[in-house]
């Protein structure tokens, strides 16, 4: 023992050197201002690109340009104004209408006025979980691209607990169903994590494969064992009343307790990542696996832990959506969350609080887009385009810097060391 001690000290020294190098250089170059500027500009630029895209795919604008240049320009402006104001109204609500409703004091009108903003929060809730899932993985240096599959499995396990068990009181049934979702998603994250730690099989490929296995599995479940007995559609039985997350307002408003659970999890994940030894170890493995190994941290174990927790969080996203909104499992419950969650994590700079705000943004955009489709006849998919552009700018900040002539930071700051992720 006595002989080993100095060795360990050396190891600890190496480890602290490695860590301080990274952390100090990060703190210097990344003032709070800088770290907020790039996402902000990325969002604005994404919206501008969306507007341009909206205009150039509008046939009427071209006809207007044929009559006169001014007409064309006016119509182009009008198109953008109409669509983005519809987006805003759909996402937050019409300010004038809200004020009027508050003045009138009529309950029904107030409900209607606040409907859009509550819907946005409903849309935000699964995004928070999915974003946290990917961010937690990123922090540990693993790339969980399989949130989509984990959401599916989480939703399936949670729906099963939700309808199969009867007679439980709500305060047991709801946590039980949520836990089931976390376990299902966690299992779906554990497998690629275990494979990475034990065999070196790349988690990106494995999670993609697991996604498709999850789709096929839930497809089979919904056509077989989990199918609602009285229908031929791919839908599970409705969950018991006791498993439904409580809603706070009368019926058109679907705002449910899931949002608060999600906010709670933001805090929980934040505490876990930054205030506990486990979280410290995870981040260590993410920043520099070699240094972590020197310090005596079991890298493989932490990778498994990170993937499992990440999967569990994604599974919670599916569970929350099922218990709070749909109350049953449909075929396409989580379309698109998988890829979006990567965008969320990066937009939030892998920080739980940042992820929360990013989720709020994506939730409001997604929700507003439905209104935009109704009012301005613009397909909701434009949101995907805007999200992709935002993600591109976040991932390649150099493009934003070129557009806005910002100064390059001294050192190229990369979100993730590419060497951690490339190849097998």
């Amino acid at each position: 023992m006595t002989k080993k001690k100095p060795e360990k000290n050396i190891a600890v020294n190496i480890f602290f050197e490695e860590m301080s190098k990274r952390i100090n250089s990060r703190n210097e170059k990344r003032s709070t201002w800088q770290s907020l500027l790039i996402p902000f500009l990325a969002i604005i630029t994404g919206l501008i690109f969306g507007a341009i895209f909206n205009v150039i795919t509008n046939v009427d604008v071209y006809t207007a340009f044929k009559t006169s240049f001014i007409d064309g320009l006016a119509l182009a402006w009008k198109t953008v104004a109409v669509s983005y104001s519809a987006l805003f109204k759909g996402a937050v609500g019409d300010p004038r209408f809200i004020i009027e409703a508050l003045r009138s004091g009529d309950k029904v009108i107030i409900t209607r006025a606040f409907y859009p903003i509550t819907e946005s929060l409903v849309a935000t809730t699964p995004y928070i979980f999915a974003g946290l899932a990917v961010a937690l993985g990123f922090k540990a240096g693993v790339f969980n691209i399989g949130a989509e599959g984990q959401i599916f499995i989480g939703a399936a396990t949670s729906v099963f607990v939700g309808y199969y068990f009867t007679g439980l009181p709500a305060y047991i049934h709801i946590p039980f169903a949520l836990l089931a979702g976390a376990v299902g998603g966690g299992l779906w994250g554990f497998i690629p994590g275990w494979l990475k730690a034990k065999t070196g099989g790349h988690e990106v490929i494995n999670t993609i494969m697991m996604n498709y296995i999850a789709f096929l599995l839930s497809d089979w479940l919904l056509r077989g064992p989990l199918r609602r007995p009285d229908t031929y559609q791919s839908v599970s039985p409705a969950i018991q009343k006791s498993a439904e997350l409580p809603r706070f307002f009368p019926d058109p408003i679907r705002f449910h307790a899931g949002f608060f659970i999600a906010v709670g999890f933001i805090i929980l994940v934040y505490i876990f990542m930054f205030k506990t030894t486990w979280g410290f170890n995870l981040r260590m493995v993410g920043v520099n696996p070699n240094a972590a190994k020197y310090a005596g941290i079991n890298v493989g174990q932490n990778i498994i832990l990170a993937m499992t927790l990440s999967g569990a969080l994604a599974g919670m996203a599916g569970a929350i959506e099922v218990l709070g909104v749909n109350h049953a499992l449909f075929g396409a419950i989580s379309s698109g969350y998988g890829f979006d969650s990567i965008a969320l994590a990066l937009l939030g700079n892998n920080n739980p609080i940042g992820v929360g705000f990013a989720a709020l943004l994506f939730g409001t955009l997604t929700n507003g887009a439905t209104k935009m489709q109704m009012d301005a006849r613009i397909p909701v998919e434009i949101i995907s385009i805007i999200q992709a552009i935002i993600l591109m700018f976040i991932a390649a900040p150099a493009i934003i810097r070129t557009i806005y002539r910002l100064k390059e930071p001294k050192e190229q700051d990369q979100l993730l060391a590419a060497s951690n992720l490339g190849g097998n």
Partner: protein
Amino acid sequence: MIKSLSIRQKKYEEVSKTRQITLGIVFILIGVLIHLVFTSKVDATMTTTFGLNPGGQEKILPDWQMNSYYTLLGFSVTCAILGLAQIFFGLRQWSNRILGILIGLFVFGFLVWGAAGKSLNLEGLFMTTIQRAVPITLGAFAGILCEKSGVVNIAIEGMMLAAALVATIIGSISHNLYVGLLAGMLTGMMMAWLLAILSIKYKTNQIIAGTVINIFSIGLTSYISARFVQVYQNLNNPGIFPIWRIPVLKDIPIIGPIFFQNSIFVYAMLILMVVIHVALNHTRWGLRVRAVGEHPKAADTLGINVFRTRYMAVMLGGLVAGIAGSFFTLGSVGRFDKLMTSGKGFIGLAAMLFGNYTPTGSFGAGMLFGFADSLGTRLSILSVPIPSDFLLMAPYIATMILLAGVVGKSTPPAADGVPYEKE
């Protein structure tokens, strides 16, 4: 070259005693599985009939009939004998090939069992297989071109989707399928160019860059589809490529109808397999691409332009993905539907890994996955108590097993996914 040689030598040394015995047990287990799952549920009087002529054409070959029970029994016995041989003598470098053959026997046993007392058109099954294999294999080729140069490409799906849409629109407007195909290829190339810029110039994490392209492409195609293609139906009616029957070759029994009575896409796949194989392994360009993917710094020192080589390889990969995308509309359905590639790009990625980054291997893997796909559609005919979903899972599970290194190993280029920084 030296590196690959040393790896190969190592592989032979690694055939250890435990691995030998494990594989032997696996062989025997396959035999036991065939016996328990298939043989025990078949009567000794049942016959399986396989049709060997393409449906709707005149019968040239007689149907292939066999006794279901004794055939299956023969399979299990073969497995058991080979397993014992493996345990006691060791089949050395043959063992992986024999494993492949035994898995093939298992699949064939499945067919014999499923079609016991019935008739299954084997020729039709294989003809569908090659159709299903086209996008998977071409997607894998696209992946190979990118990854050999050191750029990870998970955006094959997005490239295919965009190409499918553009090929439809341009093909419909121009009333010319070739113009449509060309447009699809160029679209794939454009998307690949975006990937190249992000991952080579801006050194973005390549998986994120691929994700960007996937989200972008899914959004863009669904948007344009909803706004134009579904509204103006004349934009969505390009027609499909006719079937070319190659004279003489098409008359070869069994093989002829499978390979030589197809649309341009199947021929493109076969030709590209040869072209990419030769280009990568026997030309100066190919050597450069591989050098850049294995050790960019060394390549740079020797005066190879790493960035240009990578751009070139990635964009060629996009071109191939463009052909794969065009297949969905111009080669198969003749119409664009939202999200119609339905994950084929990702299976292509799996096929690439399965084929260990070689065109011939990927073609084999693509055919295998295509076979699973085509069998999945026929399960209802066979009235086999296995849901098709599980069969469709097989490619994904097989890829995960392969990646875990249980059976063989997929070796990526050394610098795959690492952006190159010129000093």
